[in-house]
């Protein structure tokens, strides 16, 4: 292996803690909906990033592959933003 192996169990622990955190935030914290959405999405993205970086080894791949892998994200975000901005319907 060209790179030093990450501690997979540690990542696993992270994911669990974050999941628990999510559920707690969603139900136990009386936060207003807008804030809630924000935090929850943040946590979800964080978890997703962990999986991609360590389990899918993106962190240890040549940069060009990383670029490739991130390519569709803007598009995905774009369509969502545009459709959300249309109080037109």
């Amino acid at each position, binding site marked *: *292996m060209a790179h030093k*192996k990450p501690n*997979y*169990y540690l*990542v*696993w622990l992270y*994911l*669990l803690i974050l*999941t628990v955190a*999510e*559920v707690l935030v*969603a*139900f136990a914290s009386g936060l207003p909906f807008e804030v*809630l*959405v924000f935090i*929850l*999405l943040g*946590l*979800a*993205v964080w*978890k*997703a990033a962990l*999986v*991609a970086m*360590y*389990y*899918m080894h993106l962190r240890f*791949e*040549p940069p*060009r*592959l990383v670029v*490739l*892998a991130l*390519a*569709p*994200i803007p*598009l*995905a975000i774009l*369509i*969502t933003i545009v*459709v*959300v901005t249309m109080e037109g*319907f």
Partner: protein
Amino acid sequence: MSRAAAIHAQAPRPMEGIRVYNVKLGMWVFLLSEVMFFSGLIGAYIILRFAHPEQWAAPGEVLNVPLTAFNTFMLICSSVTMVKAFAAIEHGDQAGLKKWLLATIVLGAAFVGIQIFEYMKLAEHGFVPIASQYAAEGGPLYGSTFYTMTGFHGAHVSIGVLCLIFTASKAFRGQYTEEHYAGVEIMGLYWHFVDLVWIILFTIVYLI
């Protein structure tokens, strides 16, 4: 013609592509289109929900969050076992490979099982995608989007399990080695991706 002169100055050298072997690159490229597929579904979900918030019951009211949280836990575990299998074969540890692959299969299958169970419970409660027969709180769009998104993810997991079984059978025939483990690696990529999608879906479908 300085430009033209420069043209053949460069001697041929072996191209390196992007230093990732074909099968792996191919899998990554395929996963990109998967990202777009789920973005499409999620985008639709967001539009419909923005247009008709009243059709969505409060989180946990209709959907069984504890059960699904447990299911999420299992899927996350299956990711660890998968990556351990990969780590094992990288060092030619055949036993480890088999052990971890089997573990992944079990966890994956369990996830699908629990999801089916969840569906049946929900259906009893009148939570169905069909507008005409919808009985639960909220409105039919809630059900339609829920079943479509989670259903397609479930399908991906099921396919993943089948592929895992295939991979495992090859592993048991000792067809992977320290040098030849591409099959395991791309299997892992797909599996982790499915996990990743679930992480997102769990949040936006169950918690928000």
